[in-house]
C-alpha cells in the first residue's frame, strides 16, 4: 500500500505538485494519469525522495522511503530507462545495483532471463535500443523481488510484442498481491491493464477511482442503431427528444435515449433493425474530458477536430 499525503513540490515560482494525496492499493495495477506537465514524474521522484518535497509525505506500507534499509527489496522503481552509463554492460549495470542492496549474482541472472536479455547482457548499453533499456530497467525493478513497484512510462519505446509483454508482467505482478503504480500516456494500454486510476492535472488530484467508474462518469454514452428505414426511425427519435447523429445512410448514433427505448420505438413502428447496441466512450475520451480544464499544453485543431 502506498499512501501519499498532502505532497507539494515547487520549482521556483512554478507549482509542480500541489497538496496531492492518494492511495495505491495492493493486488491491482493502478494507472497514474495526467496531461503533459501535470506533475506525474515529479510526484514519483518526490515519493522516492529523489526530489526533495516541500511538504507532505509518502508512506510505503507505513514507512518512509528514506527509512527503508535496503529499499530494492521493498520498492522497485523505474523512472527513466535512460538512466544508465552507456559504457557499462547490462549485466554490470545490474551488478552495481544488486551489490548496493546485498543481492546476489544468481538473482541478476534470473532477472535477465525474465526480461529476455540474457543473450545481450554482456554488451555495452550504448548498443541497446530503448526497448532493451526498458527491459533492463524492469530487470532492475525486479532485482529485490519488491512488494511495491513504481514505473514511469514503462512501455515507451517498446514494440507491440514488448508492450503486451510488459502489460502481462505487470498484471501478473499485481495478481501476486503486489502494489503496482504505473504512469503512461498509452491510454488504450492502461485500459487493458489497470483497475484503479489516479488522475492528476496541474499538480492536483482530479480523481481517484476504478477505471470502470472513471469511464462511466466521464465518457460519452450513446446508442448505435442500424436500420434500412433509418429516416422514419430518425423522426420518431427526435420527437422523443433524442439527439440523432447520422453516421451513414443506414446508421444513426442516438444520445439522450437509452437502448430499450430506441428498440420500443422501432417496434411500435414495425421497423426492421439490423443493429441496436449501447456504446461507451474509451478511457481516452474519459481522460480528455476529465482533464480538459487541466491541460497545460493544448494541440491545435487537425481536420476540424480538436
Amino acid at each position, binding site marked *: 500500500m502506498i499512501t501519499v499525503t498532502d505532497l507539494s513540490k515547487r520549482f521556483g515560482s512554478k507549482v509542480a505538485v500541489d497538496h496531492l494525496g492518494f492511495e495505491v492499493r495492493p493486488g491491482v495495477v493502478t494507472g497514474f494519469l495526467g496531461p503533459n506537465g501535470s506533475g506525474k514524474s515529479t510526484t514519483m*521522484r518526490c515519493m*522516492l*525522495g*529523489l*526530489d*526533495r518535497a516541500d511538504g507532505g509525505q509518502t508512506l510505503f506500507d507505513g514507512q518512509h*522511503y*528514506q527509512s*527503508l534499509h535496503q*529499499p*530494492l527489496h521493498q520498492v522497485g*522503481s523505474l*523512472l*527513466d530507462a*535512460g*538512466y*544508465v*552509463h*552507456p*559504457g*557499462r*554492460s547490462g549485466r*554490470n549495470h545490474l*551488478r*552495481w*545495483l544488486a*551489490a*548496493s*542492496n*546485498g543481492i546476489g549474482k544468481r538473482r541478476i541472472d534470473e532477472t535477465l532471463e525474465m526480461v529476455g536479455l540474457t543473450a545481450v547482457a554482456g554488451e555495452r548499453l550504448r548498443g541497446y535500443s530503448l526497448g532493451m533499456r526498458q527491459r533492463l530497467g524492469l530487470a*532492475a525493478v525486479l532485482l529485490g523481488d519488491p512488494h511495491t513497484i513504481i514505473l514511469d512510462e514503462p512501455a515507451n519505446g517498446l514494440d507491440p510484442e514488448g508492450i503486451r509483454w510488459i502489460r502481462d508482467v505487470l498484471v501478473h505482478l499485481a495478481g501476486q498481491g503486489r502494489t503496482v503504480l504505473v504512469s503512461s500516456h498509452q491510454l488504450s494500454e492502461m485500459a487493458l491493464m489497470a483497475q484503479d486510476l489516479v488522475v492528476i492535472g496541474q499538480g492536483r488530484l482530479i480523481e481517484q477511482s476504478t477505471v470502470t467508474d472513471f469511464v462511466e462518469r466521464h465518457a460519452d454514452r450513446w446508442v448505435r442503431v442500424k436500420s434500412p428505414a433509418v429516416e422514419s426511425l430518425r423522426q420518431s427519435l427526435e420527437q422523443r427528444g433524442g439527439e440523432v447523429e447520422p453516421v451513414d445512410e443506414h446508421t444513426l448514433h442516438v444520445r439522450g435515449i437509452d437502448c430499450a427505448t430506441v428498440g420500443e420505438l422501432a417496434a411500435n413502428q414495425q421497423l426492421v433493425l439490423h443493429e441496436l447496441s449501447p456504446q461507451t466512450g474509451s478511457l481516452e475520451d474519459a481522460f480528455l474530458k476529465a482533464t480538459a480544464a487541466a491541460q497545460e499544453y493544448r494541440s491545435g485543431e487537425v481536420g476540424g477536430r480538436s
Partner: protein
Amino acid sequence: MINLLRSEWIKLRTVTMNWVLGIIAVAFPLLITLLTAFFASGNDGDGEGLDTEGLISVLTGTTVVAALLCGVIAAASITSEFGFGTIRPTFAATPRRLRVIVAKGAVVVAATTALAVVVQLIGWFVGGAVADSQGASIDLALVPTGVPAMIGAVVLTALMSLAGYALGLLTRSTPVAVSILIVWPLIAEGLIAQLLVLVAGNDSIPNWMPFQSGIRLVVVGSVDLGPSRPFAGIYFGLFALALAALGAWAVDRRDA
C-alpha cells in the same frame, strides 16, 4: 557500508575511461622516470649525471601530473552519475545519500592512492636499478627527504582525488569540474597569489595557497618560506575535506 563500497567499486571499474586515465596516470610518471634514469645517469665525469635526489625529484614531480589525472577520475566518478542520470537509481537504491557519497569518495580515493603507491614503488625500485645499471650512484640513505617526498606524492594524489571529487559534487558537471581542477592549480591560484602579494606585500602568500601548499608534499630538497611538509599536507587536506563536505551537503539537500 560494505555493500555500498562493493557497489561503488563495481561502478568505478566497469567504466573504460577510468582504466584509460588510470593507466596514463601510472604510465606517465614511470615512463619519464625510467627514461630519465636510462639516459641521464651516464657518469661522464662532469658530475652532472643523475643522482638520488634527481631521480626522486623526477619521480615525485611527474606524480603531480598523475595526481591531477587522478583528480579527474575522481571528479568524473560523480559527475558522470549526474550526467547519465544514474544518480537517481543510485539514490533510489540507497536513500541515505551521505552514505553513498562517503562510499564513492572512499573507493575512488583509495583506488587512486593505490595507483600512486604503485608508481612510487616501481619508479623507485626499477628507476633506481636502471640508473644503477647506467653507472649512477643511487642510495636513499644519502637523501633524508627522499622517502618523505615519495610518501608526500602518494598523499598529494589522495588529496587531489578528494579535491576533484569535491569539485564533482559541487558542480555536477564533468567539463566544469575538470576545467576548475586544471585551471585552478596551474593558472588561477598563481594569479590570485600574485595579486595578494601585491596587495599585502607578503612574499610567503603563494606558499599558503591550497595547491601550492600541497605541492610542498613532493619537494625533495629543502623548502624555504611557508609551511613545513606535514603542515602543508594537513592544510591542503583540510581544504579538500572542507570542499568535499560542502559538496556532500549540497548534494544531500538538492534534488537528485
